[in-house]
Structure formats: structure tokens, C-alpha cells
């Protein structure tokens, strides 16, 4: 598959997010993610991991500051402009977010909706090129033989790979992953993380993934972002993240619960 598009730079400039109920999701975040990086975001639940990832495609609107993806500013962006930015950013969710009662290939083709005219979408008359692209995306995650199976018939790991294929079908410059392994068992978690790693390495797509388990984050994130109460408290290579760093992120020392259980079974 030719993913010729250049990966985007993502820049956060004093970004703040305050939810309607007054909860501060992000507090004055400034950082830059270069094209082709693989970044893992860690922190306690409620620390703003999800918020950070979801501001990049505008699923969560920012209250202050500015985010630029490529050369487009997201603040206040709506309608066609926002959809154009989103079309270049794939997203993978904790609960897979597939339409479970339709086929795998239809789910992957969803990634082509931005480029599909409304009349074609209404008739589900997909372009031949888009079907080809979707099949290639399924092949990349080694699940193309399931193309015409119903999504609900697949296992959790297979469903997540369909979701990865859907994001690949977008020909994205960035892939965001919001706790992609939280609904998966440890061996499957590694399969999915390796898929993401390969996509990053082979296609040069920027990957921003937030992870609950520190060992996964340290292993797969070349760069680690640590969030605590909406603030960025660590930004550096995963290897530099020692005990002290984790204490600053988690406010306590490391325990077994912060590690993926039994991950050595699935060691590479």
C-alpha cells in the first residue's frame, strides 16, 4: 500500500481543556510531536490521557491555546474544515467501535466515507478503488480472510485489528489510539501494539497512543508523555522513565497493578 502522504507535525501551544461541568481536562500543555514519531501517553485515569488524544482530531474541543496539525489550527474549527483534518487522522478506540451487525469490509470502508459522495454512501455503492484499499488494509493486519464475516463474530483482538484496518483505509498521516488494549488480554495486547509499531515503522505514520500499563508504554513508546491532573509532568524517551519519574506521574511508587499481567508469555 502506498502511504505516500507525509506524516504530520502536531503542535500543542498552551492548550487548555475545561469541560462544561468545570473539570479541567488539560492545563497549559505545550509540546510538539514530529512526523513519524511513536508516542505513548501515560497517567492515572482522569489525568487527561484520553482528553489529550481526543483534542488532536477535535473530538474534544479545546478551550484555550491552539493545536496545529500539519498547518491547520484546530481552535474553533468546524464543518468541512474539521472533517478534512479528521480525514487524515485515524483513530482506534478502547471498545473497538465497530458497527457490529455489518461486515468487516463495510467497517473498514467507513474509513473512506470522507472521500465518498453522499449519494454513494446512501446506496452503499463503494468505489472500486476504495474496496481495493480496504482489502489491502485488512491484509496488512492479516485478517483479510474475514472480510465478509459479520464484525460481531470476531474475537476482541480481531475486532481491534479491523479497527486498525479502518484507520489505515483513511491513508492517514496520524493514528490516534485511545487505550487500544484495555479490552484485550495480555498476549492480544502485544499483537495489537506490534501492529501499531509496524504501521509506524513501515508507513511512517505518526502514532499517538495512550496506555494504562507502563510496561507496554515503555516497550512500544519511543517517547513517553506523562500526565498528572491535566499537566504534562514527563516528556522523554521511555528508557529514561525510571522509578522517580513514575512517582511524579502516579503520585506513588510503582506496583504490579501498573504492569500488564503475565506479559512475559507474549514476549517478542
Amino acid at each position, binding site marked *: 500500500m502506498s502511504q505516500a502522504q507525509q506524516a504530520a507535525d502536531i503542535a500543542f501551544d498552551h492548550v487548555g481543556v475545561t469541560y462544561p461541568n468545570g473539570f479541567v481536562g488539560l492545563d497549559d500543555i505545550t509540546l510538539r510531536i514530529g512526523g513519524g514519531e511513536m508516542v505513548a501517553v501515560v497517567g492515572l485515569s482522569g489525568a487527561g490521557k484520553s482528553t489529550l488524544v481526543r483534542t488532536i482530531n477535535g473530538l474534544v474541543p479545546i478551550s484555550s491555546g491552539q493545536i496545529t496539525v500539519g498547518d491547520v489550527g484546530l481552535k474553533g474549527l468546524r464543518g468541512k474544515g474539521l472533517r478534512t483534518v479528521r*480525514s487524515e487522522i485515524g*483513530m482506534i478506540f478502547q471498545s473497538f467501535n465497530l*458497527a457490529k*451487525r*455489518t461486515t468487516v469490509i*463495510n467497517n473498514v470502508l467507513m474509513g473512506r466515507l470522507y472521500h465518498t459522495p453522499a449519494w454513494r*454512501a446512501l446506496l452503499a455503492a463503494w468505489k472500486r478503488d476504495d474496496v481495493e484499499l480496504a482489502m489491502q488494509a485488512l491484509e496488512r493486519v492479516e485478517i483479510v480472510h474475514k472480510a465478509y464475516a459479520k464484525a460481531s463474530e470476531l474475537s476482541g483482538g480481531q475486532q481491534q485489528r479491523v479497527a486498525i484496518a479502518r484507520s489505515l483505509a483513511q491513508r492517514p498521516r496520524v493514528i490516534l489510539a485511545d487505550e487500544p488494549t484495555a479490552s484485550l488480554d495480555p498476549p492480544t495486547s502485544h499483537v495489537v501494539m506490534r501492529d501499531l509499531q509496524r504501521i509506524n515503522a513501515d508507513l511512517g505514520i505518526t502514532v499517538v497512543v495512550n496506555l494504562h500499563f507502563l510496561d507496554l508504554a515503555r516497550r512500544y513508546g519511543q517517547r513517553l508523555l506523562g500526565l498528572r491532573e491535566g499537566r504534562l509532568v514527563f516528556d522523554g524517551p521511555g528508557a529514561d522513565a525510571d522509578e522517580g519519574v513514575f512517582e511524579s506521574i502516579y503520585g506513588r511508587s510503582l506496583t504490579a497493578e501498573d504492569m500488564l499481567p503475565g506479559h512475559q508469555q507474549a514476549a517478542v
Partner: protein
Amino acid sequence: MTTFPIAVPPPGDAPGIATRHPDEHRPWPHKPRTWPRALVIAAVICALTAWSAIAIQFDPATLIRNAHNASRTLVQLFQPDYTFIPDTAGALLETVQMAVIGTAVSVALALPISFLASRVTNPSTVVLGVARFIMNVIRSIPDLLYAAVFVTVIGTGAISGVFALVLFDLGIMVKLISEALDGLDRGGQEAALASGATWLKADRIAMLPEVAPSYISQTIYVFELNIRASTVIGLVGAGGLGMLIDKVRTFYQYHYLSTIILEVLVIILALELLSSASRKRLLI
């Protein structure tokens, strides 16, 4: 590992519930008192029932006073005249045809309107409010009233009946399907929107397949309703079996009336069997 002798209670202690030191005693929460409220509600319901019965002069004795008359009618009703069946064929067919057309038109219209009337598939609160308001008005009018209005406006016959059925079904269908949409998992839709799709495209591709089984199932239900309804709306002249019922009733031909009632019963039962069988197949 230390083992605890849970099977043998320490001497002097009652078995079962662990003993607590008297100083540790805290009162358990009190069960809230609910009986005064229950009493008030029961009294209100009784009062309403009594008031209604007095207002409409409900008197079970009427049934006994008219027993002679009633028994004669009942005897006739219990002797259906099966030779009448061929004469009902035309009206019966018309009832089924009305039900088919009414169902087809109404479910086709109901699908897009349901997407407008669900909070989950329509982001515009204004359009949502307008769609829901119009549908509430349509649904608040009973089928018989629609039939009476169309018979007055268009004239007697099946076409008035079809219009009445369409509006009646539309109200039910949109209510059921938009509520089914409200309860769906929105994961696919969220993903489609996150990839730059418009709401229209996301709803079509991610939400329609999810709501399809309940759409088909409710279509069968509405068809069932239509068979029932089209026997009733005929009473005001809107075609089908109902018109025939009205005729034989006017001439006190109770042998015929019971034949028609039996026919309807058989059709409804057959439809029930058919629909429950197809629903089972649908929802595997």
C-alpha cells in the same frame, strides 16, 4: 500459610454471626416509611374508579336485564354460517391489500423520519424538536378518527383506509424505530465521525445496519396491526372487512358476523405464528 479454624467457633460464642463488642454497636439504618404514600395512591385510584363508574352509569344489572336479548344474539353468534365464506373473499382480500400497501408506504417514510427523530442520529436540536413534535401530533390521533376524516374528504372505500393506515403506522413506526436508535451502541458512528464523515454518511453506514433487525421486526408488527386495524376502520366506510362487518351487523345477520370474526381470528393467529417465526430467524 496459616489456617483459621472457621469451622470450630471459640467456646462461649454463639455460632454463626460474629459477636461484636457492645461498644461497637451502631444502629442499622431504619427502613423508610412508605405505607402512607401507598395508602394515598390506592385511595386516589379507588376514588377515580368510583367517579368514572358513576359518571357513565355503569350498572352490571343492565347485562342481566337484557339477558333474553343477549342470549338470542349469542346463540346466533355461536352458529357461524360457513357458506358465507365465499362472499367474504373480496372484502378479506381488500383488507390484506390495504394492510400491505399501508405497511409498505408507512415503513418507507418512517425510516428517514426516525433518524431525524432520534437524539442519537440527529445532532440538530431544532430539527429534532420539530420532527418529534410533528410525530407526536400524528401519533395522538387514533386510526378510527383518521379513517373518518379521510372518508369524509376522499369518500368511502379502500383508498381512504390506506391513507388512514399510513398515518397511523407512521406514528407508531417512527416512535419505535427512533427509540431503538436511541438505545444503540454508537461506537461505529463515533469512529465514522472521527474519520471525517458527515452525520448523514455516518448514520447511514454505521447506524442503519445496527437498527435493521428491529426495523424489520417492527415492520412485521405494523403489518399485523394493520390487519387488525383495517377490520375496524372499515366500520366508518374505509373499505375492507370492516365495511362488510358494518353491513351484516346493520341487518342483524349474526351468523355471518361470527363467520367474519372467525376469519379475522384465523388470519391474526397465522400472522402471529409467521411473525414470531421470522423474528426468531432475524435475531439470531
